[in-house]
């Protein structure tokens, strides 16, 4: 059990970009694998511009987007396999602790997760990144990077607490969101 050995960090979304958790996580993963610094606006432009003309401004993409599309850069207009860092199809759901350990400790690949919150009308999903797994007092724990957290956005919690809201959005769950999906990276 361990942590990603190469440094990885997430850029805060800030109130100016309240929908850009997907861009922050994608920029972190691209930077981690490509060893070149990517920013949220750069990711937004590549992921969303309709014709790859360079005319598209990041501000035009001030909205949410599926993380799987951004991680793999499946925008047909800007298709570039060099930026495809998605190793799963995004339909894994929550995974078990051993699988997290394999991805992070053995394969040295960050794992992205979708966390779902209840809102007055419908549910909304927020993306974060797991960068470490460890044992504490015989219990599995994780380290999570959250683009909506105060920098550096690092949170640590028992794996069971991350998974505690998995089935429903029970308000009694220790962690205030349900873990609804997992994205492996490469």
């Amino acid at each position: 059990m361990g942590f990603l050995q190469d440094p990885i960090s997430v850029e805060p979304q800030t109130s100016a970009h309240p929908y850009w958790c997907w861009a922050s996580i994608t920029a972190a993963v691209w930077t981690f694998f490509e060893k070149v610094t990517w920013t949220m606006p750069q990711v937004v432009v590549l992921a969303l511009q309709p014709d790859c003309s360079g005319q598209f401004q990041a501000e035009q993409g001030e909205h949410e987007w599926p993380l799987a599309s951004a991680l793999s850069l499946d925008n047909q207009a800007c298709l570039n396999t060099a930026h495809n860092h998605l190793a799963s199809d995004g339909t894994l759901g929550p995974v078990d602790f051993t699988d997290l350990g394999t991805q992070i400790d053995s394969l040295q690949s960050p794992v992205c997760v979708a966390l779902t919150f209840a809102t007055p009308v419908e549910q909304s999903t927020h993306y974060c990144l797991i960068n470490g797994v460890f044992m504490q007092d015989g219990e599995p724990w994780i380290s999570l990077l959250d683009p909506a957290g105060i920098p550096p956005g690092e949170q640590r919690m028992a794996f069971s607490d991350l998974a505690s809201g998995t089935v429903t959005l029970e308000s009694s769950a220790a962690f205030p969101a349900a873990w609804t999906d997992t994205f492996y990276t490469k």
Partner: protein
Amino acid sequence: MNVQTTAAPHSKQQVLDLITKTFADRRLGKSPRTVVMGLPLFRMSWESTKPTVEHKGWRYLTLFNAQESFVVDAVTSRNTEFRFLFQRGSGRIWLQGLQNLLRRRQIKTPQFELRCLDVPAAHLSLLWLYSTDAESLFLYLHNHGQVCRKEKLRKLEEVEREIEIAIEQKLAGFSRVRLPNVNS
């Protein structure tokens, strides 16, 4: 300002030991000057369309030797023992927010209890001046990972309205792209 804090269930040493163990950093335990402050932790969530504010446990604001800072949430979950959630870096923000709040002279009476309020679905956190005799007041601390500076004190209706607007905007953004799973 006339404020009070309710006694938290964990000692300063317990909190420091938890942080040192979780982050496997013995230097933290040897830090000569540390600040630990425990405040009641509340969360706003929605069971249906109605917002619910629930007492979830305690939030410990920690500063090590003016360098490293942490927030430790001791959350009561399903009426079992406390579960602990750790955030690195944010203790300083909360303590600075508290300091700013306590500098404000305009609130002279009555007695207030200091609380923390998180709105996880909107990625917002606030300091809450709670009173049984007067209107509660709130100060925004952070918003989507951004520290809120020079914020005014707000009343509950104002906070509820702003949160409602923030959530509506978020949901409007979601419907714009019409995705089965949307994100914030």
